[in-house]
């Protein structure tokens, strides 16, 4: 179940809609939409652009991200990893796709004010983050992953949930 986390139960339909993995075509569609979308919102909000930089400060252009920024500063990773190290997948392509998707939906959510007070990571981004740990730690954990087959990998977040921010 780790590799397939259940929906982090928030009842906002629009969010539910994002909770399934993205098939390639749908992905493209969204990327397109996303770019437009981001463009659009960037117009009103500088923040949209924040998604394209790696500066944590930029994430916190949205005050709703401030909590994580504060927590991140204090965390063991505050000095070693930025938001995007953990919240975007390896590889430039995937990275910007993800940024676009998040940028689009988060900007949308932010403007329409449609999101829970206690923000919960989506299953998709949860998986992105799980895989991002390996960008830096794969050597260390090769051993414990050795008994695992694809799709049943060790979930780092189970035990290290708060490494990035409380």
């Amino acid at each position, binding site marked *: *179940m*780790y590799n*397939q*986390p*259940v929906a*982090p139960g928030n009842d906002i339909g629009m969010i539910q809609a994002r909770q399934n*993995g993205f098939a*390639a075509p749908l992905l493209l569609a969204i990327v397109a939409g996303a770019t437009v979308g981001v463009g659009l919102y960037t117009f009103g909000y500088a923040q949209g652009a924040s998604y394209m930089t790696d500066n944590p400060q930029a994430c916190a252009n949205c005050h709703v991200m401030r909590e994580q920024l504060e927590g991140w500063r204090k965390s063991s990773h505050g000095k070693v990893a930025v938001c995007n190290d953990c919240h975007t*997948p390896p*590889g430039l392509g*995937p990275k910007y*796709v*993800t940024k676009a998707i998040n940028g689009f939906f988060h900007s949308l959510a932010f403007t329409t004010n449609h999101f829970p007070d206690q923000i919960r990571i989506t299953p998709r981004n*949860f*998986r*992105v983050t*799980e*895989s991002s740990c*390996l960008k830096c730690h*794969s*050597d*260390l*954990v*090769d*051993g*414990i*992953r*050795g*008994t*695992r*087959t*694809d799709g*049943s*990998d*060790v*979930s780092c977040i*189970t*035990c*290290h*949930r*708060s490494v990035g921010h409380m």
Partner: protein
Amino acid sequence: VNIFERKQESRNPFFRVVELTDDVDDPAVWGKNFPLHYDSYKRTVDQERTRYGGSEALRRLPTKVDPRSVVAQNKLEDDPRLTTIWAGYAFATDFREERGHAYMLVDQRNTRRVLEFKQPGTCLNCHASTYTTMKELGNGDLTAGFEKMNQMSYSDATKLVEHPVSCIDCHDPKTMQLRITRPAFMEGMRVFKASTGIQDFDVNRDASAQEMRSYVCGQCHVEYYFKGPEKRLTFPWQKGLKVDDALAYYDEVKHADWVHADTGTQTLKAQHPEFEMYNQGVHARSGVACADCHMPYKREGGLKISDHHVRSPLLNINRACQGCHHFSEQEMKSRVETIQRRFAHSRDVAMNAVVDLIADIKSARAAGKTEKDLAASRDLHRKSQFFLDYVEAENSMGFHAPGEALRVLADATDMARRGQLALRGFISSPTKQPAPANERVQDLSSKGTR
């Protein structure tokens, strides 16, 4: 392109110096490929106690019958009430605190329960590396070998084994993946899952990797009985994993472990239902596995490995708990002890009630009461004994499922006292029956963390 897939690059940092086949039960051989694991595995000889767990190394004079020079605490001396509740059963002659895996075979061979009572080969299922033995006995057919071993006498069967639980009992030698090697657990899970609506569950095929981190332990750390003349090792899970379900099952198949010496009651003895109780707790619900706490990862040089020094997590709080709980070691320890202290209190209350009931039935018999007069109180004796014993035999002192353990003790206390009242002609007929303590059987072990 699936951007989530983790790269499957060289995931094998372990340097294989020997070829491991499915017939190597000697851990030393496996140790050649996995020296770090073998070293920690061997550390299970260590004896260190915690407030309620671990074990204490007590010296003794080796004798011809029992060559052990070191044993763990004698629980019967520490709490004589146990000899009363088990009167007439082998457990009343010898029962010690359990210790590390390294001792499982020698402790079994030398307990008076084996030395002075005839026991079947079945006992070995959980006290030795029996995988290769069973395969040989069954000429390749594990289950056939399992059935053969069960039907042998203990003395004959034990000659066939050499090691305590070994690498091969938990691991596939080729992939090192976890696997279930005990037919009793395969069958137990099948009937249990069926009770939750999942048909022909094959644990080695259908269980997730995280579940396997508990299932390998569930092969032994469970309540069991020997079914029929074939002495087949069987887990009472047909109706579910709760104590109520086990009792209902035993009642249905009319099973009793022994007849209580003082009361003549058809009594049941429960043994180490760690797996079942754990499944009633918030950790199982959260997807936390036995291995997470009892075999936490430890860093060895540039590598993280699972600590094979299986032991009390309270001897290893930093690794066992602090990954998930951000409180001091002292605070985590005292949280556990707060739970255990409460449990110990209610356990004592319940045990005193059962002891009182036994004394009452005993004197009632002496006073010549008829079987009919005793029926009601004996029925409550059987029930309260099993409920009490179930959580008492569970080895975490209530920690694995604090709420469920106390609920069971409250029920045991009520039943024992009502047993005493029944002898005095009082049968309770409440206007409102207690609401059920739990939802219908459900499988918590497979819940995710989210």
